């Protein structure tokens, strides 16, 4: 009787089996080099760096000094907490603003207007983040368009400065996240049957109960996917806080940048980097656990 295992191993000895293995080797090498040299080892490196503390010039030991420094210096953990809380706020505002628009595109727009409205949401995001931020600066500055229009309409007596505050920062971040909320929301709402909504009304539901009992539960996968992406993008944003935020309210990515590039304190900057990774993955994990969704499916949905 021929043992299938022996048959299989005999086949690997043939030239076809060898070619097969060589092909796999050639295909897998670039993938391993990419992930190994550009993603995994660099993160191991900043992990090691973050644990090395300076005790004298050019002398380092292993320890949690950089993380203690983070906890003991209020400006560091204030910035961290501020970034976390404002990012959650931005995610919530983005969801509230985008939901009606996604609902309109998915359920109310008819004929050609549906793909056109959807496409129009994508267009601004083909422009660079820097360009979009420049646009907001020109709108909100003291000498900017909004201030000019307010004076022209007689609402304001003198130029109004709307830039460099938490308000302009949140506005810019919400703007930057909107697309990533609208796309998964629209996709989720598309699959909702109109009959289901109408049944809700027939049973005596008001607009509010239909929204709460039928539409929102159906959109939940889209809400989770959008919220996760928007939160991660917001936490990691750099341009918007630098350009639109106030002078006395830093974003955590700015702290990382200043430790690495301005102060050349790489161990401290690496510790901050790890804190940021922890924040973004931690909140995302929590969000997934609370709503019972998987990471890969969620990421693929967007």
């Amino acid at each position: 009787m021929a043992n299938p295992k022996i048959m299989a191993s005999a086949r690997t000895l043939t030239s076809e089996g060898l070619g097969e293995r060589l092909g796999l080797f050639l295909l897998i090498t670039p993938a391993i080099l990419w992930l190994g040299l550009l993603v995994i080892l660099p993160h191991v490196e900043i992990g090691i760096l973050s644990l090395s503390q300076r005790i004298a010039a050019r002398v380092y030991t292993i320890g949690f000094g950089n993380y203690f420094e983070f906890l003991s210096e209020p400006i560091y953990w204030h910035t961290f907490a501020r970034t976390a809380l404002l990012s959650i706020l931005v995610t919530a505002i983005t969801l509230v603003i985008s939901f009606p628009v996604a609902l309109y595109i998915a359920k109310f727009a008819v004929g050609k207007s549906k793909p056109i409205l959807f496409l129009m949401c994508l267009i601004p995001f083909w422009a660079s983040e820097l360009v979009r931020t420049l646009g907001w600066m020109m709108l909100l500055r003291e000498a900017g368009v909004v201030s000019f229009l307010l004076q022209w309409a007689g609402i304001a007596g003198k130029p109004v400065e709307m830039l460099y505050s938490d308000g302009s920062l949140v506005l810019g971040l919400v703007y930057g996240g909107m697309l990533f909320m609208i796309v998964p929301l629209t996709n989720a709402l598309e699959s909702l049957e109109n009959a289901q909504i109408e049944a809700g009304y027939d049973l005596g539901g008001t607009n509010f109960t239909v929204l709460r009992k039928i539409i929102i539960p159906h959109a939940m996968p889209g809400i989770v996917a959008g919220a996760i992406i928007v939160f991660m993008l917001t936490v990691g944003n750099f341009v918007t806080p630098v350009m639109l935020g106030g002078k006395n309210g830093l974003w955590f990515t700015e702290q990382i940048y200043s430790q690495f590039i301005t102060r050349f304190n790489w161990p401290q900057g690496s510790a901050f980097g790890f804190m940021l990774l922890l924040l973004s993955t931690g909140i995302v994990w929590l969000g997934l656990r609370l709503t019972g969704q998987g990471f890969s499916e969620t990421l693929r949905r967007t």
Partner: protein
Amino acid sequence: MGKASLSFRLYVLAFYLFLFAPLVVVALFAFNASPFPAPPWKGFTLEWFTGTGAMFGKPGILRDPAMLTAFGNSLKIALPVTFLAIVLGTMNAFLLERREFPGKALLSIMMLWPLVIPGVILGISILAFSSRIANSLEAWLNMDLDFLRPGLFLVILGQLSFILTISTLIIGARLKKFDRSLEEAAYDLGASRLRVLLTITLPFLKPAIVGAGLVALLMSFENFNTTLILVGSDAPLPIYMYGQMREGATPALNAASFVMMLGAGLLATLVALVSSRKAE
């Protein structure tokens, strides 16, 4: 569904105004004949594109050597990134769609990581790691390895680290739809593996490869966070514009932004055309 109420429709209208306001403003003030990118409107001009500098003391972007150098640097980064993204992305797609090997599930999850890691962190981690390699190799080989210090090479690697994920996903999605009986038919007719790849599989993948290349080109041109950390003295366009912005806004930046938007629009249209042909 019934018709949307008036207030609902007004809300959607206001949303789209909000969405386009910053872009319209940027474009508009590129053509304002004023030394400042601010109202009031002083008349239409192309001075900020083609001017010699006689009118506003600063040349238009098409005659500004610094701006053109920055654009050249962007090309020096974007072209290699695009090339590597499509070649390696195609290889990754074949690896994930066609091969079985231990650890495949882990590898396909790990490929998604660069999308969720903030760009600043990707930048500092690659900077720190390449510096460590440079330091130890330089001591060992007793020579300078400048390409491992901040500069174009590191920017290319940094951008590739996450753009490759995107090109892999785009090309892999197309390869998944491929009907393998087409390949088998060709083998049965005696075609070699190379010939099947060149005449059947790759032509099928072509729209996805072109689309992935266009997306890679655009993302490379517009990337800011990772590039800012890894950049040396050769600043590409967004980094140069950022430096200029911090010194004070001039309509020259609007003109450069306008050109970038035109370029992005062109690439986006090409992507849409390619993917609509793919759907057929």
